[in-house]
């Protein structure tokens, strides 16, 4: 392309070029491997930070409690102890699963603060199997449970009210949302913010991280 000076550009051609570039930009994101390498560099560079499940602030306490509930309800051991987690574990998913939304098959008929739970079954081998509602220092935390054909269970919790502090963990971004991935005992936990609320997904370690991120990033609005 050494003859740029020889060919004038008209308005329509320039506008077409803008649209072409815009389309290419919209479909291009940094590869996950790059994100992970940068995250590893960042984790090495930063000073020791407050752990999610430690610390005395309200947000940290609430976050720890959410994590405990999700872990306990999700069926995995090894999570943080405490009466709250133990009580949650005893209760288990006590309610029936929400039904699939009639007009939006990618969603369930359950939401918290306007954030709906997805119905994955049309896209992934996970179906809603139960639900539970808890109060954490006055905040509503609703967990919907999903199971796959191998009877593995995932807990999907949305916490009402202001979002919680983000925990320290491996961060990755997809679209407009970024996700923090943690390992807790034999569970993998992903947390992110959607619609101004904290969402937490907890799964057995047998569920690959990538699968869990795919589930987390799938809002359910993809199917209409």
């Amino acid at each position, binding site marked *: *392309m050494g003859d*740029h000076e020889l*060919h004038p*550009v*008209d308005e329509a*051609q*320039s*506008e*077409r*070029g*803008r649209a*072409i*570039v*815009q*389309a*290419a*930009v919209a*479909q*291009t*994101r*940094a*590869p996950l*491997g*790059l*994100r992970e*390498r*940068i*995250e590893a*560099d*960042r984790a090495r*560079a*930063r000073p020791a930070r407050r752990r999610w499940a430690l610390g005395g602030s309200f947000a940290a306490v609430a976050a720890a409690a959410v994590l405990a509930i999700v872990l306990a309800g999700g069926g995995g051991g090894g999570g943080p102890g405490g009466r709250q987690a133990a009580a949650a574990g005893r209760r288990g998913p006590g309610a029936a699963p929400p039904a699939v939304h009639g007009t939006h098959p990618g969603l369930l008929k359950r939401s918290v603060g306007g954030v709906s739970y997805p119905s994955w079954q049309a896209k992934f081998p996970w179906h809603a199997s139960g639900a539970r509602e808890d109060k954490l220092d006055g905040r509503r935390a609703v967990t919907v449970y999903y199971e796959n054909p191998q009877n593995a269970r995932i807990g999907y919790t949305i916490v009402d009210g202001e979002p919680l502090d983000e925990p320290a963990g491996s*961060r*990755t*971004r*997809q679209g407009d949302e*970024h996700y923090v991935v943690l390992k807790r005992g034999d569970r993998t936990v992903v947390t992110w913010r959607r619609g101004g609320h904290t969402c937490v997904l907890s799964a057995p370690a047998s569920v690959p991280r990538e699968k869990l991120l*795919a589930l987390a990033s799938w809002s359910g609005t993809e199917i209409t």
Partner: protein
Amino acid sequence: MSEARQLDPDSLGDHVDRLYRAAWGLCGSREDAEDLVQETYAKVLAKPRFLRGGDDLGYLMRVLRNTFYSSHRTAQRRPQTTAMPEDFEPADRRTAQRPEEALEARGVFEAIVGLPPDFRDALVAVDVAGLSYREAAKLLGAKEATITSRLFRARGHVAAGMDRGRSSVLEEKN
């Protein structure tokens, strides 16, 4: 003048996509773009950085450009390897189901790389990285009017380059 504030390492991840696209537009290959972005982050994270205002992206773009011009041009003199189409792995999972779009995007970035440097830099700064004209002018040390003019022509030449690419593909098929 606003007070200096420390660049928050935790917020840097928000800019990875934009930097990666910009790096691809500069380097011309995804592999080099990944290396450039990682090198950029490594430099920024090496020590605390203090900025005035909220222009994190502009700062990162400056480091990325400096890194590109200082090291990647030297590297480009070495023998290059090119990913073959069958090896092409879409950067975005969404395009994994639409390989033709991924290849189209690659063609667009190749057209951007082929632009004269001034045009390419303006287009990368504004259309690819998403800087404002003002931010791009500051980054590139040019007037906003100059950026506008370069951008206008750069866009036109990308369109022309894509047309030529499509024509040659059609000729090969026939």
